[in-house]
């Protein structure tokens, strides 16, 4: 094979260039901290990376959904606990009122406290979570309940009713007004309790107590009214259990999503991330190859016959 000086030079330049290109490539990967910098680096990996990023972003979102739902649950739980406490006190008062030996003043006092408690109940029924009424179904912007004056048996009475502003233009709180949050792909959780379902019987019970106290109907108080108040306590317990169960589910979801996030991050890192130790080793290797080829270059200017002729 015939070799000439220009061939050696050209070969050297080509190889040097290739070595430098590889060196630059490894450098670039380390600087970018990613081995897939463009789809052509690994088309399959790039598609997978896109998918994993998508899933990670969804997981993050579901996690935030679940946490927001938990806030709502906590606020609902607080409201229901308060309602339970109020009902407990009402129960005591009812038992007290059922005692036939009460003086009219005592009854008056009890009636006063019952009315106070009713106001408190109303407040709880109109609880909000971050400015939204929890028990209003889809009508989150108006308090679901209000005290209205109503004529009952020819007498004007103040009773708790659905907020009269709500049925405006046919709007009403529907039994199916469930506010749902996404917790995953086709996985949803209803976060709210429907106010009228929870509170209708409770307010009825309180108002019948109020009524019986006003009319001094101790028979009713010890009978139906006491029964109703006790039932109300049961209702609250039932819904607290529901909220408790949802809270558990949400907490489980949060910890599952946290674990998923770690898993997917690792997967993503395996797909598009770099193994620094490996790459640094590679970088060192490419560096020494490049240095070696440079030192070869220094020798390219070989003596020719010219140097030996005189």
């Amino acid at each position: 094979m015939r070799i000439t000086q220009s061939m050696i030079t050209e070969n050297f330049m080509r190889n040097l260039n290739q070595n430098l290109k590889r060196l630059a490539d490894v450098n670039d990967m380390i600087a970018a901290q990613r081995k897939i910098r463009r789809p052509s680096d690994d088309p399959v990996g790039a598609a997978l990376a896109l998918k994993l990023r998508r899933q990670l972003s969804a997981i993050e979102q579901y996690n935030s959904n679940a946490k927001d739902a938990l806030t709502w649950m906590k606020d609902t739980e607080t409201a229901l606990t308060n309602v339970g406490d109020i009902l407990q006190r009402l129960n005591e008062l009812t038992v007290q009122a059922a005692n036939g030996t009460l003086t009219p003043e005592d009854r008056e006092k009890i009636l006063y406290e019952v009315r106070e408690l009713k106001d408190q109940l109303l407040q709880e029924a109109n609880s909000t979570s971050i400015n939204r009424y929890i028990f209003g179904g889809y009508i989150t912007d108006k308090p679901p309940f209000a005290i209205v004056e109503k004529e009952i048996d020819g007498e004007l009475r103040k009773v708790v009713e659905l907020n009269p502003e709500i049925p405006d233009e046919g709007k009403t709180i529907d039994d199916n007004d469930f506010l749902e949050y996404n917790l995953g792909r086709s996985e949803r959780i209803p976060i709210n309790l429907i106010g009228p379902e929870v509170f209708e019987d409770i307010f009825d019970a309180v108002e019948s107590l109020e009524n019986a106290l006003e009319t001094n109907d101790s028979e009713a108080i010890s009978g139906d009214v006491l029964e109703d108040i006790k039932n109300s306590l049961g209702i609250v317990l039932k819904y607290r259990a529901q909220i408790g169960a949802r809270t558990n589910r949400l907490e489980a979801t949060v910890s599952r999503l946290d674990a998923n996030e770690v898993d997917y991050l690792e997967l993503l890192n395996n797909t598009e991330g770099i193994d620094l130790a490996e790459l640094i080793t590679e970088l060192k290797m490419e560096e020494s190859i490049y240095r070696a080829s440079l030192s070869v270059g220094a020798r390219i200017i070989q003596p020719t016959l010219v140097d030996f002729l005189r």
Partner: protein
Amino acid sequence: MSSFLGIEIAKTALFANQRAQQTVSHNVANANTQGYSRQRAMMESTYTAYGFGANYQMGTGVKITDINRIRDEFTDRQYRNENSSRGMWNIESDILKQVEAVFNEPSDIGISSVLNEFWKSLETFAKDPSSLEARETVKERGVTLSNTINHAFTQLNDIINDINYRISIQVNDINSIADQIAQLNLQIQQTQIGGASAADLMDKRDLLLDDLSELVQFESYVDENGLFTINVGGAILVKGNESATMEFDTSTANGKITWKEYSSEVRILSGELKGLLDLRDDKIHNYLDKLNEFTQTFVDEFNAIHQNGYNLEGDNGLDFFQYVDGILSVNPDIVNNPSKIASAEDPDGIPGDNRIALELSDFRYKEISIDGRDCTIDEYYGSIISKIGVDSQEAARAADSQAFMVSQLDERRQMTSSVSLDEEMTKMIQYLHGFNAASRMVTTVDEMLNTIVNRMGITGR
């Protein structure tokens, strides 16, 4: 037989060695000239048929019959074919890298990330459709998404414009090369008619052919009339001293390259020009189609859901996105008033009813029929990115292997044609000795003549 023949013979040797020495000098001078093939002075002995009354052949010296260039034309052919292919893949790889940069995936700023942000904003919106902040975010993310997609369209179209610009430059280059080759053909022909070799002119032509091969694939041959001919895709580009002209229609974005003389389209098999046309009419065209399909389907399906809902003002949903004349935007009514984003399935459920908002955020999981297959909008986008990645990877690999092939073939050509200084120095010494010896011959014959003329017949003086 002349007494002076001996001097004559030595003189031819002096001239021949001198001429050969000049060739060596020419080689050394051009050792680093691109496209230069080393040359050799071809020597031939001269003779007269028969001596006076004698039955033998009489040598009369040496002459240079030709200055040959040493070149392997078979490898030239191979080199140019592979070089065309290298040119094609190289330019495809280059431009596909630009396309990848347009999409910038996977990253935190590509369409997929912006799309993810859009989905997230919809989720937040679904959690509390009454929140104006959440609505504002959906609107903003929608605008960002529109801008990002529009930007990709603009940049892809810019690349196509750039390709057209390159095509027009290359067509000019080809025409100019064809013209130069035709002129060289004429010069070579004239030189050869005079009986001389045209080594340096032929080198020039070969260099032009190398350049041409990068742009477009061709066949070159000498036709039956001895005319050097270049054939591109079945049509004659150059024949002898005549060349044809390619014309590129720049009036449209997908203009064709035609022959001015034959008024037919130029068939291009390989070379950069082929790569550019492939990208413009096939690959990038295809990505634009797919991106358009993606955008159109996304807009149609998303709007369909949105229209089913009711906004905070109790009205039916508008078109959330508008996709007109290839430009995506969020409905200006919504941009001005995000309360117009629909969230409720039932007008009675305003503002808390989030069923439509949930459906909008679940749209990401909806299998839709796009481009003849069922997949989600995200998956379809992912498939576009994969396709670009695969195309670009294929082009880069092919370009690499072609570059290797071309460099191997070039090495083979260099093996034959390039100047070796060692070799030239050896020849230099060789011709120097030849020259010295011939000079000595002149002196010797001179001495012989001296003997005859001055020293013979002096008896009796």
